[in-house]
Protein backbone atom coordinates (compact mmCIF):
# COMPACT_ATOMS: atom_id res chain seq x y z
CA UNK A 1 0.00 0.00 0.00
CA UNK A 2 1.07 3.57 -0.51
CA UNK A 3 -0.45 7.01 -0.41
CA UNK A 4 1.33 10.23 -1.35
CA UNK A 5 0.48 13.46 0.46
CA UNK A 6 1.65 16.92 -0.56
CA UNK A 7 2.16 19.13 2.48
CA UNK A 8 1.29 22.51 1.02
CA UNK A 9 0.22 26.00 1.94
CA UNK A 10 0.58 28.44 -0.94
CA UNK A 11 2.09 30.96 1.45
CA UNK A 12 5.55 31.03 2.98
CA UNK A 13 6.34 30.87 6.66
CA UNK A 14 3.49 28.63 7.75
CA UNK A 15 5.87 25.88 8.89
CA UNK A 16 5.45 23.37 6.09
CA UNK A 17 8.85 21.75 6.48
CA UNK A 18 8.56 21.44 10.25
CA UNK A 19 5.08 19.98 9.70
CA UNK A 20 6.23 17.55 7.01
CA UNK A 21 8.97 16.07 9.18
CA UNK A 22 6.80 16.05 12.31
CA UNK A 23 3.94 14.28 10.53
CA UNK A 24 6.47 11.92 8.97
CA UNK A 25 8.00 10.94 12.30
CA UNK A 26 4.59 10.53 13.92
CA UNK A 27 3.31 8.42 11.03
CA UNK A 28 6.51 6.36 11.11
CA UNK A 29 5.32 4.85 14.39
CA UNK A 30 2.83 2.90 12.33
CA UNK A 31 3.87 3.13 8.70
CA UNK A 32 6.91 2.96 6.50
CA UNK A 33 7.35 6.65 5.68
CA UNK A 34 9.36 8.44 2.97
CA UNK A 35 9.71 12.22 3.10
CA UNK A 36 10.74 14.11 -0.05
CA UNK A 37 11.79 17.77 -0.21
CA UNK A 38 9.77 18.69 -3.29
CA UNK A 39 10.28 22.43 -2.75
CA UNK A 40 12.94 22.22 -5.43
CA UNK A 41 13.55 25.95 -5.83
CA UNK A 42 13.79 26.82 -2.13
CA UNK A 43 14.76 23.61 -0.43
CA UNK A 44 15.30 23.66 3.32
CA UNK A 45 14.35 20.25 4.61
CA UNK A 46 17.99 19.22 4.68
CA UNK A 47 18.68 21.82 7.38
CA UNK A 48 15.79 20.56 9.49
CA UNK A 49 16.81 16.94 9.18
CA UNK A 50 20.55 17.21 9.85
CA UNK A 51 21.37 16.47 6.20
CA UNK A 52 23.05 19.75 5.26
CA UNK A 53 26.34 18.05 4.39
CA UNK A 54 25.17 15.11 2.34
CA UNK A 55 26.70 14.48 -1.05
CA UNK A 56 23.72 13.47 -3.18
CA UNK A 57 20.34 15.17 -3.19
CA UNK A 58 17.17 15.18 -5.26
CA UNK A 59 18.74 17.75 -7.61
CA UNK A 60 21.37 15.17 -8.59
CA UNK A 61 18.64 12.67 -9.39
CA UNK A 62 16.66 15.12 -11.50
CA UNK A 63 19.42 15.88 -14.00
CA UNK A 64 19.77 13.94 -17.22
CA UNK A 65 21.90 10.85 -16.60
CA UNK A 66 22.01 11.75 -12.92
CA UNK A 67 22.24 9.68 -9.74
CA UNK A 68 19.83 6.87 -8.94
CA UNK A 69 17.00 7.62 -6.55
CA UNK A 70 18.50 5.28 -3.95
CA UNK A 71 21.63 7.43 -3.75
CA UNK A 72 19.57 10.37 -2.48
CA UNK A 73 17.63 8.41 0.15
CA UNK A 74 18.87 8.71 3.74
CA UNK A 75 17.53 6.81 6.72
CA UNK A 76 16.95 9.30 9.50
CA UNK A 77 14.64 9.39 12.51
CA UNK A 78 12.85 6.20 11.54
CA UNK A 79 12.03 7.47 8.05
CA UNK A 80 13.53 7.57 4.60
CA UNK A 81 14.39 11.16 3.76
CA UNK A 82 15.12 12.53 0.30
CA UNK A 83 16.60 16.03 0.74
CA UNK A 84 16.95 18.58 -2.03
CA UNK A 85 19.98 20.80 -2.56
CA UNK A 86 19.90 24.57 -2.27
CA UNK A 87 22.01 25.61 -5.25
CA UNK A 88 20.02 27.64 -7.77
CA UNK A 89 22.39 26.47 -10.49
CA UNK A 90 21.52 22.87 -9.68
CA UNK A 91 17.84 23.73 -9.68
CA UNK A 92 18.21 25.29 -13.10
CA UNK A 93 19.94 22.16 -14.40
CA UNK A 94 17.36 19.82 -12.89
CA UNK A 95 14.24 18.75 -14.74
CA UNK A 96 11.44 18.93 -12.16
CA UNK A 97 9.19 16.75 -14.27
CA UNK A 98 11.48 13.83 -13.48
CA UNK A 99 10.02 14.04 -9.97
CA UNK A 100 7.20 11.93 -11.34
CA UNK A 101 9.58 9.01 -11.93
CA UNK A 102 11.27 9.55 -8.55
CA UNK A 103 7.97 9.37 -6.69
CA UNK A 104 6.91 6.34 -8.72
CA UNK A 105 10.14 4.55 -7.79
CA UNK A 106 9.80 5.43 -4.11
CA UNK A 107 6.15 4.33 -4.12
CA UNK A 108 7.15 0.74 -4.76
CA UNK A 109 8.71 0.41 -1.35
CA UNK A 110 6.90 2.55 1.21
CA UNK A 111 3.49 3.12 2.84
CA UNK A 112 3.36 6.89 3.01
CA UNK A 113 5.11 9.50 0.87
CA UNK A 114 5.12 13.08 2.16
CA UNK A 115 6.07 15.75 -0.37
CA UNK A 116 7.19 19.00 1.24
CA UNK A 117 5.85 21.46 -1.32
CA UNK A 118 6.73 24.96 -2.45
CA UNK A 119 5.20 28.04 -0.83
CA UNK A 120 3.80 29.30 -4.11
CA UNK A 121 1.52 28.27 -6.95
CA UNK A 122 3.27 30.40 -9.52
CA UNK A 123 5.39 27.87 -11.40
CA UNK A 124 5.06 24.40 -12.84
CA UNK A 125 7.77 23.02 -10.55
CA UNK A 126 5.92 24.43 -7.53
CA UNK A 127 2.57 22.95 -8.47
CA UNK A 128 3.91 19.58 -9.61
CA UNK A 129 3.93 17.94 -6.12
CA UNK A 130 0.23 18.82 -5.77
CA UNK A 131 -0.46 17.26 -9.16
CA UNK A 132 1.41 14.07 -8.26
CA UNK A 133 0.00 13.60 -4.74
CA UNK A 134 -3.13 11.63 -3.94
CA UNK A 135 -4.17 14.21 -1.35
CA UNK A 136 -2.91 17.46 0.14
CA UNK A 137 -2.48 18.40 3.78
CA UNK A 138 -3.03 22.16 3.86
CA UNK A 139 -0.92 23.96 6.47
CA UNK A 140 -2.59 27.16 7.66
CA UNK A 141 -2.10 29.95 10.12
CA UNK A 142 -5.14 31.71 11.56
CA UNK A 143 -4.69 34.73 9.27
CA UNK A 144 -6.62 35.93 6.22
CA UNK A 145 -3.77 35.52 3.68
CA UNK A 146 -2.91 32.03 4.94
CA UNK A 147 -6.54 30.92 4.72
CA UNK A 148 -7.00 32.58 1.37
CA UNK A 149 -3.87 30.92 -0.05
CA UNK A 150 -4.83 27.60 1.55
CA UNK A 151 -8.16 27.73 -0.26
CA UNK A 152 -6.32 28.37 -3.52
CA UNK A 153 -4.14 25.31 -2.89
CA UNK A 154 -7.25 23.21 -2.40
CA UNK A 155 -8.79 24.49 -5.63
CA UNK A 156 -5.60 23.81 -7.58
CA UNK A 157 -5.45 20.34 -6.03
CA UNK A 158 -9.03 19.44 -6.88
CA UNK A 159 -8.50 20.72 -10.41
CA UNK A 160 -5.82 18.02 -10.74
CA UNK A 161 -7.97 15.33 -9.06
CA UNK A 162 -5.95 15.58 -5.86
CA UNK A 163 -8.08 15.45 -2.73
CA UNK A 164 -7.74 17.24 0.60
CA UNK A 165 -6.75 15.02 3.52
CA UNK A 166 -7.18 17.76 6.08
CA UNK A 167 -6.09 21.14 7.36
CA UNK A 168 -3.46 21.79 9.97
CA UNK A 169 -3.45 25.05 11.90
CA UNK A 170 0.10 25.98 12.83
CA UNK A 171 1.71 28.69 14.99
CA UNK A 172 -1.51 29.09 16.93
CA UNK A 173 -1.32 31.43 19.91
CA UNK A 174 -3.55 32.06 22.89
CA UNK A 175 -6.19 34.57 21.92
CA UNK A 176 -6.31 33.38 18.29
CA UNK A 177 -9.84 32.10 18.95
CA UNK A 178 -8.90 28.96 17.04
CA UNK A 179 -11.87 27.15 18.57
CA UNK A 180 -14.09 29.54 16.63
CA UNK A 181 -11.94 29.91 13.52
CA UNK A 182 -11.28 26.21 12.83
CA UNK A 183 -14.97 25.17 12.56
CA UNK A 184 -15.65 28.12 10.26
CA UNK A 185 -12.65 27.21 8.08
CA UNK A 186 -13.74 23.57 7.94
CA UNK A 187 -16.88 24.61 6.10
CA UNK A 188 -14.73 25.42 3.08
CA UNK A 189 -12.15 22.64 3.21
CA UNK A 190 -12.88 19.09 2.17
CA UNK A 191 -10.85 17.53 4.96
CA UNK A 192 -11.12 17.85 8.74
CA UNK A 193 -8.91 19.91 11.04
CA UNK A 194 -6.17 17.41 11.82
CA UNK A 195 -4.73 19.46 14.69
CA UNK A 196 -4.05 22.92 15.98
CA UNK A 197 -0.33 23.23 16.64
CA UNK A 198 0.61 25.90 19.18
CA UNK A 199 3.36 28.44 18.48
CA UNK A 200 6.41 27.07 20.24
CA UNK A 201 9.97 28.11 20.96
CA UNK A 202 10.86 24.42 20.65
CA UNK A 203 10.25 24.63 16.90
CA UNK A 204 12.89 27.32 16.41
CA UNK A 205 15.30 25.54 18.74
CA UNK A 206 14.85 22.28 16.83
CA UNK A 207 15.54 24.02 13.55
CA UNK A 208 18.73 25.55 14.98
CA UNK A 209 19.78 22.14 16.23
CA UNK A 210 19.18 20.64 12.77
CA UNK A 211 16.70 18.15 14.13
CA UNK A 212 13.02 17.46 13.46
CA UNK A 213 10.77 18.72 16.25
CA UNK A 214 9.71 15.23 17.31
CA UNK A 215 13.33 14.22 17.79
CA UNK A 216 14.42 17.43 19.51
CA UNK A 217 11.44 18.09 21.77
CA UNK A 218 9.19 15.01 21.73
CA UNK A 219 7.48 16.08 24.93
CA UNK A 220 6.57 19.58 23.69
CA UNK A 221 2.92 20.53 23.21
CA UNK A 222 3.63 21.18 19.52
CA UNK A 223 5.00 17.64 19.12
CA UNK A 224 1.91 16.24 20.83
CA UNK A 225 -0.30 18.19 18.42
CA UNK A 226 1.54 16.74 15.42
CA UNK A 227 1.11 13.21 16.81
CA UNK A 228 -2.59 14.01 17.15
CA UNK A 229 -2.65 15.19 13.51
CA UNK A 230 -0.97 11.99 12.33
CA UNK A 231 -3.49 9.86 14.19
CA UNK A 232 -6.34 11.79 12.54
CA UNK A 233 -4.87 11.19 9.10
CA UNK A 234 -6.38 8.06 7.63
CA UNK A 235 -3.88 6.56 5.20
CA UNK A 236 -5.63 4.80 2.38
CA UNK A 237 -4.74 1.29 1.49
CA UNK A 238 -3.77 1.55 -2.13
CA UNK A 239 -1.94 -0.81 -4.35
CA UNK A 240 1.67 0.27 -4.89
CA UNK A 241 1.70 -0.73 -8.53
CA UNK A 242 -1.43 1.28 -9.28
CA UNK A 243 -0.05 4.35 -7.58
CA UNK A 244 3.30 4.04 -9.33
CA UNK A 245 1.46 3.80 -12.62
CA UNK A 246 -0.50 6.90 -11.75
CA UNK A 247 2.70 8.85 -11.18
CA UNK A 248 4.35 7.53 -14.30
CA UNK A 249 1.33 8.32 -16.44
CA UNK A 250 0.70 11.77 -15.00
CA UNK A 251 0.44 14.02 -18.01
CA UNK A 252 3.51 16.14 -17.63
CA UNK A 253 5.59 17.30 -20.59
CA UNK A 254 9.21 16.28 -20.66
CA UNK A 255 10.66 19.60 -21.69
CA UNK A 256 10.25 22.91 -19.78
Amino acid at each position, binding site marked *: MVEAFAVASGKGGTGKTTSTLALGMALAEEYDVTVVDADMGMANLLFHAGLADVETTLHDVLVEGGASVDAAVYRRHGMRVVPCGTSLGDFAAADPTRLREVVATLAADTDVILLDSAATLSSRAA*VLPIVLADRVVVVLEPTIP*ALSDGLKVQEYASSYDTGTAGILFNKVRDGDAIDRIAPKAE*RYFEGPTLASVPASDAVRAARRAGQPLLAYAPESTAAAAYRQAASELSVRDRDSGTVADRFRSAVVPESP
Partner: protein
Amino acid sequence: MKLPDGRLVRSRVVSDPRTVLVDALDRGLTGYAVLEPQGSLLLDDDGRGVLTFAEGVPVVAYHTGTERGGPPALADLAASGPYRLNLYAVRPGALDAVHDRASFRVPPGMAADRLAGDQSLADRTRELAPEDWTTERTHDSASSGERSVGAVEAFLDDERKIEAIREEARAEARERAEEWGFGDVG
Protein backbone atom coordinates in the same frame (compact mmCIF):
# COMPACT_ATOMS: atom_id res chain seq x y z
CA MET B 1 -17.49 58.48 8.81
CA LYS B 2 -16.27 62.04 8.25
CA LEU B 3 -12.57 62.24 7.60
CA PRO B 4 -10.63 65.47 7.98
CA ASP B 5 -8.76 66.85 4.98
CA GLY B 6 -5.20 65.71 4.93
CA ARG B 7 -1.96 66.18 3.04
CA LEU B 8 -1.45 63.48 0.42
CA VAL B 9 1.89 61.80 1.18
CA ARG B 10 1.63 58.83 -1.12
CA SER B 11 -0.50 57.70 -4.03
CA ARG B 12 0.20 54.44 -5.81
CA VAL B 13 -1.16 51.01 -6.64
CA VAL B 14 -0.28 48.28 -4.15
CA SER B 15 -0.97 44.57 -4.42
CA ASP B 16 -0.79 43.76 -0.75
CA PRO B 17 -2.26 45.65 2.24
CA ARG B 18 0.97 44.90 4.07
CA THR B 19 2.70 47.63 2.04
CA VAL B 20 0.35 50.20 3.52
CA LEU B 21 0.98 49.08 7.08
CA VAL B 22 4.74 49.08 6.68
CA ASP B 23 4.67 52.51 5.03
CA ALA B 24 2.52 54.06 7.78
CA LEU B 25 4.60 52.48 10.52
CA ASP B 26 7.93 53.55 9.01
CA ARG B 27 6.67 57.12 8.64
CA GLY B 28 5.13 57.13 12.13
CA LEU B 29 2.12 58.46 10.25
CA THR B 30 -0.76 60.19 11.96
CA GLY B 31 -3.38 60.20 9.27
CA TYR B 32 -5.26 57.70 7.19
CA ALA B 33 -5.08 55.38 4.19
CA VAL B 34 -7.82 55.04 1.62
CA LEU B 35 -7.67 51.76 -0.28
CA GLU B 36 -9.74 51.37 -3.41
CA PRO B 37 -9.81 47.93 -5.06
CA GLN B 38 -8.70 47.99 -8.70
CA GLY B 39 -10.11 45.28 -10.93
CA SER B 40 -11.79 43.71 -7.95
CA LEU B 41 -12.29 39.98 -7.55
CA LEU B 42 -15.99 40.57 -7.01
CA LEU B 43 -17.53 42.66 -9.73
CA ASP B 44 -20.04 44.23 -7.38
CA ASP B 45 -17.54 44.65 -4.59
CA ASP B 46 -17.39 48.40 -4.68
CA GLY B 47 -16.46 50.72 -1.91
CA ARG B 48 -13.23 51.75 -0.29
CA GLY B 49 -11.44 50.72 2.83
CA VAL B 50 -10.25 53.33 5.27
CA LEU B 51 -7.64 52.71 7.90
CA THR B 52 -6.56 55.46 10.28
CA PHE B 53 -3.21 55.64 12.07
CA ALA B 54 -1.83 57.34 15.14
CA GLU B 55 1.96 57.58 14.96
CA GLY B 56 2.06 54.64 12.57
CA VAL B 57 -0.25 52.39 14.56
CA PRO B 58 -3.68 51.46 13.09
CA VAL B 59 -6.62 52.74 15.13
CA VAL B 60 -9.88 52.61 13.17
CA ALA B 61 -10.99 50.58 10.16
CA TYR B 62 -14.06 51.28 8.04
CA HIS B 63 -15.37 50.05 4.70
CA THR B 64 -17.60 52.35 2.68
CA GLY B 65 -19.15 49.51 0.64
CA THR B 66 -20.31 47.35 3.52
CA GLU B 67 -20.50 50.27 5.98
CA ARG B 68 -18.87 48.06 8.56
CA GLY B 69 -16.30 49.27 11.04
CA GLY B 70 -13.68 47.58 13.21
CA PRO B 71 -12.26 44.09 12.50
CA PRO B 72 -14.98 43.12 9.97
CA ALA B 73 -13.89 46.10 7.86
CA LEU B 74 -10.41 44.55 7.65
CA ALA B 75 -12.02 41.37 6.32
CA ASP B 76 -13.95 43.43 3.77
CA LEU B 77 -10.64 44.73 2.46
CA ALA B 78 -9.06 41.29 2.18
CA ALA B 79 -8.38 39.60 -1.14
CA SER B 80 -9.64 42.55 -3.16
CA GLY B 81 -6.28 43.80 -4.36
CA PRO B 82 -4.56 45.36 -6.17
CA TYR B 83 -5.60 48.60 -4.55
CA ARG B 84 -5.16 52.25 -5.37
CA LEU B 85 -3.67 53.59 -2.16
CA ASN B 86 -3.86 57.20 -1.08
CA LEU B 87 -2.09 57.94 2.16
CA TYR B 88 -2.83 61.21 3.97
CA ALA B 89 -1.16 62.92 6.91
CA VAL B 90 -3.24 65.08 9.22
CA ARG B 91 -2.39 67.49 12.03
CA PRO B 92 -2.27 65.99 15.53
CA GLY B 93 -5.72 65.71 17.08
CA ALA B 94 -7.56 66.00 13.74
CA LEU B 95 -8.73 62.39 13.97
CA ASP B 96 -9.80 62.50 17.61
CA ALA B 97 -13.51 62.44 16.80
CA VAL B 98 -13.06 59.48 14.43
CA HIS B 99 -10.94 57.62 16.94
CA ASP B 100 -13.56 58.07 19.63
CA ARG B 101 -15.83 55.58 17.88
CA ALA B 102 -14.92 52.53 19.91
CA SER B 103 -16.86 50.14 17.69
CA PHE B 104 -14.71 51.09 14.68
CA ARG B 105 -11.43 50.51 16.48
CA VAL B 106 -9.13 47.63 15.68
CA PRO B 107 -6.52 46.16 18.02
CA PRO B 108 -3.12 47.68 17.15
CA GLY B 109 -1.58 44.49 15.73
CA MET B 110 -4.66 43.01 14.08
CA ALA B 111 -4.24 44.45 10.59
CA ALA B 112 -0.60 43.30 10.40
CA ASP B 113 -1.31 39.93 11.98
CA ARG B 114 -4.59 38.96 10.34
CA LEU B 115 -4.89 40.99 7.16
CA ALA B 116 -1.21 40.96 6.17
CA GLY B 117 -0.29 37.70 7.93
CA ASP B 118 2.96 39.22 9.17
CA GLN B 119 3.49 38.39 12.79
CA SER B 120 6.76 40.27 13.21
CA LEU B 121 5.21 43.44 11.76
CA ALA B 122 2.33 42.94 14.18
CA ASP B 123 4.74 42.62 17.10
CA ARG B 124 6.59 45.79 16.02
CA THR B 125 3.27 47.63 15.76
CA ARG B 126 2.08 46.47 19.17
CA GLU B 127 5.33 47.60 20.74
CA LEU B 128 4.74 51.11 19.42
CA ALA B 129 1.11 51.27 20.56
CA PRO B 130 0.50 53.26 23.73
CA GLU B 131 0.03 51.03 26.73
CA ASP B 132 -3.44 52.32 27.51
CA TRP B 133 -4.80 50.92 24.24
CA THR B 134 -6.51 47.88 25.59
CA THR B 135 -8.60 47.14 22.53
CA GLU B 136 -6.44 44.14 21.70
CA ARG B 137 -8.13 42.23 24.47
CA THR B 138 -11.65 43.48 23.94
CA HIS B 139 -11.67 42.39 20.33
CA ASP B 140 -9.77 39.16 20.58
CA SER B 141 -11.19 37.68 23.71
CA ALA B 142 -14.54 35.98 23.96
CA SER B 143 -14.62 36.70 27.67
CA SER B 144 -14.83 40.43 27.19
CA GLY B 145 -18.55 40.53 27.76
CA GLU B 146 -19.33 41.95 24.36
CA ARG B 147 -18.07 39.29 22.00
CA SER B 148 -16.61 40.93 18.95
CA VAL B 149 -16.05 39.22 15.67
CA GLY B 150 -12.39 39.18 14.74
CA ALA B 151 -11.13 39.96 11.26
CA VAL B 152 -10.42 36.29 10.46
CA GLU B 153 -13.87 35.20 11.58
CA ALA B 154 -15.50 37.99 9.59
CA PHE B 155 -13.52 36.86 6.55
CA LEU B 156 -14.69 33.28 6.98
CA ASP B 157 -18.28 34.46 7.41
CA ASP B 158 -18.16 36.15 4.01
CA GLU B 159 -19.22 33.17 1.91
CA ARG B 160 -19.56 35.25 -1.22
CA LYS B 161 -15.97 36.43 -1.07
CA ILE B 162 -14.64 32.97 -0.28
CA GLU B 163 -16.55 31.51 -3.21
CA ALA B 164 -15.09 34.23 -5.44
CA ILE B 165 -11.56 33.34 -4.26
CA ARG B 166 -12.21 29.68 -4.99
CA GLU B 167 -13.70 30.34 -8.40
CA GLU B 168 -10.78 32.52 -9.38
CA ALA B 169 -8.31 29.84 -8.22
CA ARG B 170 -10.15 27.17 -10.19
CA ALA B 171 -10.07 29.28 -13.34
CA GLU B 172 -6.38 30.04 -12.79
CA ALA B 173 -5.57 26.35 -12.22
CA ARG B 174 -7.32 25.37 -15.45
CA GLU B 175 -5.60 28.10 -17.41
CA ARG B 176 -2.16 27.22 -16.06
CA ALA B 177 -2.71 23.50 -16.51
CA GLU B 178 -3.01 24.22 -20.19
CA GLU B 179 -0.02 26.54 -20.15
CA TRP B 180 2.13 24.07 -18.22
CA GLY B 181 0.89 21.04 -20.13
CA PHE B 182 -0.66 19.24 -17.17
CA GLY B 183 -3.20 17.69 -19.50
CA ASP B 184 -6.96 17.87 -19.51
CA VAL B 185 -8.00 19.46 -16.28
CA GLY B 186 -11.40 20.49 -15.07
